[in-house]
Every structure is written in C-alpha cells, then in structure tokens.
C-alpha cells in the first residue's frame, strides 16, 4: 500500500493527525483502538459539517465492492462514498449474475478481482471469518462490510459516531442492546468498539435463545467492561430508566438454523411508545436497520428516534474510512 495518495489530488492534512489506518485491513473492531476510531470520527464530522472536502482524493484509485449477501445501506453508502471520493468502483452486488452462481469460490473471486488492479476490497459475505480469510488471500487492504453473524465494523463506527454526536460523549454511556444479540453481526462489533471507552455499561436484553455470544462476553470481561444480562420482560422494564441509549436489532430469520425457533421468538421484544414510557425522556433509540416488527413506526416521530440519522452517518463514516485506509492524509 502507498502511504500517500499516488493517483489522486492531495488535500493536505485536513486534521494534521497521523493516519494510523493507512493500508490496514478493517476486519474486526477488536483491532481498532480508540485513537483509530476518533480519527475516523473527526474526519467524518468535518465531512458532515462541510469543513473537510474529500472529493476526488481517490481519483485514479480502484475500489472493489464484493457483496455476496443482500445489502442496501452498506452497499449504497460504500458505493456513493467511493464514487464521491473519485474512485473507480468494481462491484459484485448480485451473486446470482456473477460466477459465484456457477460455484466459483470466494478465493478465486478475490484473486480475479485483485488481478484487475484494485486498491481496496470491501467485502460482505455470509460466512463468519470470510473477511479475515480474504485479507490473508490478498495484498490489498480489506474492509469487512459484514461477515455473516460475526462482525460489521463499519456499522459499529457509525453507531458510536452517532452516540458521540447525540450524547456529546461515549465515556460512561449506558447502552441497552435489545433483540437478537446472538445472530446480529452489529452487536459484537459495537461491543468491541465500546470497550475502548471508559466506564461504558452494557445491558444485554434478549431471551436466552438470542442472548449475546460467549466470545463477546469473554472479550468484555477481559477488557473490564461492565455488562449485565436482562432476559425477562420485567427485568427489561427495570433496566430502562438507567439507559442513555437503547440499541434495537432485528430478529433475523435467515440466521436461525431451525425456522420453528424463529417463529417462537419473533415479536417477543417490540419497542413501542409503551416500552419507551419506562425510559428517560431523552433516551435515544438506535437500530442498524432494516427493521421488521421489532421497532414500531410510532417511535419514528418521537425525538428519541435516532436511527435515520444513524443510517445517514454511514456515508461520512465510510468516506472517511476509505480515504484513510487508502492512505489519505489524516
């Protein structure tokens, strides 16, 4: 990886900070320090406020978007981010019309794309571990845009950015995570990134079948993060008044090995005005979207609804990340 933008227009150092992400793979939030995240946030803030312009900084560069699983927000925001930074984009968005449908392996697909001279690969794939495998396969930086139910680090970056923007801080934040915590890829990444901040408390609110995975608990324990598990509806009501943020996740049918299990738990954790009445007036509601029936539309008009702003933040965050990973000035 070049350490500076070789083909594009230099923009000087927008923040005057060292770019700690240049040439790096973004596979897991466990690999990101607080400083790495703050660098992305500061650049994204500048992009949002119009004080930093990254247009054309990736002119002459080539970004591959390999999406072997459905995606709306992540694909579109990476596509728009890369294009607005001036990069050429190669994309596989519909595996049904690519050689993947003919049984081509991920390994071969990546080797083929790499041969087209790409400078970065953004990957979404249903297999856990796929992003790390691809990073070992190719010499160009890989950004994980969702590896099955394992991780979704760029979502966590925009989530924490949203918390920081709305709360004015992340340290000491009390965050409830409700819904499908077991099969959600956003939950592990969010937990790993939050572990970089001081005094964060996490409340996992889910039925036992959908509770957070053991490796996430182990990581939080090792990093000294306080967390608690609330499983019964009464316990959830009890936790609600303590929360700054309630992060809701979709119960994902496709993650259940057994469809009867899915039918048994769907709709059991619904966020509506009634549940919000147990929380503080300024409680922020977040959701990685798409939602099904776990987040009532009646919440949309309340000031507590942060989720559309959260989704919008995907664009400046992914612009900042692509700029930095491809060696742009910090």
């Amino acid at each position, binding site marked *: 990886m070049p350490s500076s933008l070789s083909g594009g227009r230099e923009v000087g150092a927008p923040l005057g900070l060292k770019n700690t992400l240049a040439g790096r793979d973004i596979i897991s939030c466990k690999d990101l320090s607080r400083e790495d995240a703050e660098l992305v946030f500061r650049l994204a803030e500048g992009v949002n406020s119009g004080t930093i312009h990254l247009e054309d900084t990736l002119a002459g560069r080539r970004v591959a978007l390999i999406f072997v699983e459905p995606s709306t927000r992540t694909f579109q925001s990476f596509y728009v981010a890369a294009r607005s930074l001036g990069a050429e984009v190669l994309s596989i968005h519909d595996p049904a019309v690519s050689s993947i449908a003919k049984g081509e*392996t991920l*390994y071969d697909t990546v080797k083929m794309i790499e041969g087209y001279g790409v400078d970065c690969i953004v990957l979404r794939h*249903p297999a*856990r*571990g*796929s992003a790390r*495998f691809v990073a070992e396969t190719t010499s160009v930086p890989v950004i994980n845009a969702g590896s099955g139910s*394992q991780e979704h680090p760029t979502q966590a970056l925009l989530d924490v950015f949203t918390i920081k923007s709305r709360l004015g801080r992340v340290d000491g934040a009390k965050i409830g995570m409700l819904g499908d915590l077991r099969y959600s890829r956003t939950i592990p990444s969010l937990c790993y990134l939050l572990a970089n901040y001081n005094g964060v408390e996490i409340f996992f609110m889910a039925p036992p079948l959908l509770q957070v995975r053991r*490796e996430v608990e182990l990581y939080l324990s090792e990093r000294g993060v306080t967390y608690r598990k609330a499983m019964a509806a009464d316990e959830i009501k009890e936790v609600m008044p303590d929360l700054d943020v309630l992060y809701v996740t979709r119960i994902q049918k496709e993650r259940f*090995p057994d469809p009867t299990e899915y039918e048994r738990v769907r709709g059991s954790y619904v966020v509506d005005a009634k549940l919000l009445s147990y929380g503080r007036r300024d409680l922020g509601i977040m959701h990685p979207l798409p939602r099904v029936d776990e987040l009532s539309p009646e919440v949309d008009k309340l000031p507590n609804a942060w989720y559309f702003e959260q989704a919008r933040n995907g664009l400046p965050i992914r612009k900042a990340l692509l700029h930095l990973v491809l060696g742009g000035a910090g």
Partner: protein
Amino acid sequence: MSSESLLVRKIDWGTVLDHIPAWKADQVIKLLNLESLKQDPDVSVIVLHNVPSKKLGRKDIVKLYHYMVSEDEAKILALVLPQITINYIRDWKVKKHSPGLPERIVGKIRCPETSCITNVEREPATPRYIVMKEHGVIACEYCDTLLEIERIPDFLVD
C-alpha cells in the same frame, strides 16, 4: 509381567502413548501428523484397546515404533487428552515427556460453527485456533467461535 507386555512386546525405539482413556486411541491417531507417519516405511503403529490399568481401570495404549512424536504433536495430545503419558524410547531406555500446552493449533479440528469460512466447501481456509487454557476453550482465529477443550474430540478432522 504385566498384561500389556503379554499382548505386545516392548519396543526399543519410538514413542509409547499411555493412559489413553479406553477406546479413545482413534483420537490420538487423528491428532498425530499422519502424513509424516505414513511417509516413513519403517514406522509401525500398534494400538491396544481396553487394557487393564491401575490408574484408569481400563485404558488404551498407542505404540509408535520408529516414530518420535514431535513437540507440537505432544502439546496437542496433552491438551486434548490431559491424562495421557508420553514416553520416548531410545535403545530400550524410557524417558517420560511432559509437554507444555500449545498456544495455537493449526488444522486437526473442525470449527464447530457451521457458517465459518473454514467449513465452506472448496474454500482453501485451514482452521486455526488460539488456545485460551485459562478459560478452558480454544477460539477459531477466523470466526471467533469458542470450543470447550473437552469437546475437541467431537470435532477432530477424519
């Protein structure tokens, strides 16, 4: 003369893996580097099942004639079968070996997570694990899934 020596004579050179729980010798074979074993035409493998044992009641023994188990193999055996005794034999002299624990394991074990990239057919991803002995688990380096050490035998690659 012990019942074991009645069954199979002693060896003058090689490795004797003793105190294997009864009927678990197949796990030992799976944990060895079979390719390296097979490449040596002088190697013989003698497997004893269900031999009487003072310590275990019944046990298995694997004798590897003309094969010295490597340090990496010994560490994995000690992790998965903590009761095992590893004896190196050189010119009839027996030296008991107590290996440390491995930090990593490459191959040998199938990731228990069915959606792990290492379980995707035809993808050339070899499973790799970090050993977290203090937590009693190994962690897949690709997909982070944890596997309890005592469950490893259920996931040995054939």
